């Protein structure tokens, strides 16, 4: 009985309904989309994972992170390295190393040979970096614009670093040409579909996690830290710890998005991780509604979709369109499209069922 009533609380039903609808739509997609479009959608879902994390860190926690490309890239490169090694077979050397490198696998690649440790590293390395960096930065009370610019510089540095290490990272070429994903042939459309479903499930899981975090006390605390960091300290909390948690969660989500992006897109290169893509991740979040749950996901998918289809028609049109989106939404609709929905709902007569 109580379960029923809590479930039927207005806020909760709406969220559950939206969540269920999203899940059904995602599951139906393979039936209606061509393999190419499904592949695109799968890619968009991976980018949306980054957006979900940003929604938490930025929308809730006020951490404008302009460097999510770093974590996306870490996840992607770690996965790509594993796939390269797996393709090369036991003891084998990835093709590009034979061409540009010493023909030997550097020691720091070796841990990625095993699938299990690869998956672990994809989760742990970004989390550790984010924790370390977050800790260093937040305990020193670097925040606001400082943090934004610093994280942007980090993305720039990361891209430059990747480009400069051609022998071991593939340089500007990045890593590509993967044949199999944990033993499953990537050329087989059925496996592509499986990848899509994995991406969809992971994305839904992430949304659920972020929802739990935002409605929890942690979510309230995060907002409190965003608005009055110093005050929180006088209540006995360490605001740095709160921020680090949000930052790490966002980083791991970005990394998982990156890791799944690799087998789906078939490539990762420094152009996917630098300053420009890092800011690109933010558009969808802002447009969908940074402080809402599904806003970042929907916004991110919509923007990716618009980018692909508009640039098919008008190459330079996309740039104008993207610029205009940024300008109009952020300046005139800071709550994102979700806020339009909210406004409309409020205008509806009081008491009408949501």
């Amino acid at each position, binding site marked *: 009985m109580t379960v029923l009533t809590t479930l039927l609380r207005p806020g909760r039903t709406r969220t559950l309904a939206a969540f269920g609808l999203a*899940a059904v739509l995602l*599951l139906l997609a393979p039936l209606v989309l*061509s*393999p*190419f*479009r499904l*592949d*695109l959608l799968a*890619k968009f879902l991976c980018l949306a994972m980054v957006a979900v994390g940003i929604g938490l860190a930025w929308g809730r926690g006020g951490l404008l992170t302009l460097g999510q490309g770093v974590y996306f890239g870490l996840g992607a490169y770690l996965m790509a390295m594993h796939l390269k090694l797996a393709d090369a077979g036991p003891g084998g050397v990835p093709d590009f190393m*034979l*061409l*540009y490198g010493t023909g030997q696998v550097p020691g720091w690649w070796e841990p990625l040979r095993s699938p299990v440790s690869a998956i672990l590293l994809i989760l742990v390395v970004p989390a550790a970096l984010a924790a370390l960096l977050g800790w260093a930065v937040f305990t020193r009370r670097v925040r606001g614009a400082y943090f934004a610019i610093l994280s942007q510089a980090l993305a720039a540095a990361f891209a*430059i670093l990747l*480009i*400069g290490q*051609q022998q071991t990272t593939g*340089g*500007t*070429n*990045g890593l*590509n*040409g*993967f044949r*199999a994903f944990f*033993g*499953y*042939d*990537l*050329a*087989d*459309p*059925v*496996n592509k*579909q*499986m990848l899509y*479903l*994995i991406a*969809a*499930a992971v994305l*839904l899981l992430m949304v659920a996690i972020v929802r739990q975090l935002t409605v929890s006390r942690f979510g309230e605390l995060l907002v409190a830290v965003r608005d009055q960091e110093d005050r929180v300290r006088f209540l006995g909390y360490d605001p740095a710890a709160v921020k680090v948690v949000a930052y790490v969660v966002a980083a791991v989500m970005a990394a998982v998005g990156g890791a799944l992006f690799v087998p789906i*897109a*078939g*490539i*990762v*290169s420094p*152009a*996917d991780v630098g300053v420009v893509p890092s800011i690109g991740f933010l558009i969808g979040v802002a447009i969908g509604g940074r402080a809402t749950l599904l806003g970042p996901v929907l916004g991110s998918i919509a923007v990716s979709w618009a980018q*692909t289809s508009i*640039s*098919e028609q008008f*190459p*330079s049109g*996309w*740039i104008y369109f993207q610029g205009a989106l940024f300008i109009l939404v952020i300046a005139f609709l800071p709550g994102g499209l979700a806020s339009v929905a909210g406004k409309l709902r409020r205008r509806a007569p009081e008491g009408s069922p949501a």
Partner: protein
Amino acid sequence: ALCVVALSACGARVDAGSDTSASAESCVDTSGDTVKIGFLNSLSGTMAISEQTVHDSLELAAQEINADGGVLGKELEIVSEDGQSEPTVFAEKAGKLITSDCVAAVFGGWTSASRKAMLPVFEAQDSLLFYPVQYEGLESSPNIFYTGATTNQQIVPALDYLVEQGTKSLFLVGSDYVFPRTANKIINAYAEAHDIEIVGEEYAPLGHTDFSTIVNKVKSADADAVFNTLNGDSNVAFFKEYKNVGMSADDMPVVSVSIAEEEVGGIGIENVEGQLTAWNYYQTVDSPANTAFVEAFKAEYGEDRPTSDPMEAAYTSLYLWKAMVEKAESFAVEDVTAAADGVTFDAPEGEVVVNGDNHHIAKTALIGKIGADGLIHTEWSSEEPIEPDPYLEGYDWADGLS
């Protein structure tokens, strides 16, 4: 739970070992009186500067071919895609052109990164790419035709020329990516075998704009010549700095392999006048085919638009594909590649011949000097087309390279 349900619903697991290499059935439709081909160039982003020109000359070739009755009597229908200067987008758009638009062949790409990104897509889908830019070699894919120079048609001849001029020491300056690094690896091997001292090797990130340190190093190294593999904007900053510290082609000539006619204006003629370039084509090449090409291009795009090597190679690539298709009397990839060997075209640069083994083409190497008119004038020529040798197998000194 969702994941498990979904997976068991699909159920189609593929064993790790089983090599299905399920290349999708081609969906190219040749039943009508048109045939689709794809152009994939960066029309936005940092590479748009260069790739727009390639796109323009591809359009020109397509127009000419259509005006001339098409290919096998079918009119060409162009599907254009923007690579946005990003490898990932190139891969995505290549996939789209092949599987969604069902084009018979794709023309485009510029940076090696874009080519590397597209390569697995074309191989997996067993489709065709024509790539028009000089590159670092060490590659040959059954699904790609390379109509720009490989290293033995551009870099090696440039080095031969320098040796001929009595060059004993070289300074290498390049952008930090695959092409310059690989090129410089080759140059180092060559230098060792030919008694040339490499007195410095410097890389700048793409887009780097402050060359005072690198130019300082070049200046104090005092080499006989500089071999320049910088790409894009960096050339401007490099040559301005070079001139500002008071150096010129007379003191220490710079041989560039990525500066073509359309870049000269942006760098400023006064900054590069007298410097050398290595290509297979210049606008000034004196041949009837080139005269026609330059005239047609200017008529289409304006008097002030120069023509350049990559543009010419792209233009040529479309005609080569036409010739292959007509020789094969089929648009099917298998048939086209089978017919490719020995196909020739009287290109603006001179006659080119397709090598069926490595899918490159025989080209004549030209060393040029940048003139006060902003054009590049041939200074030295290999006279004969050079057979493509992407892995430098015919060069002893290159043994250790790959």
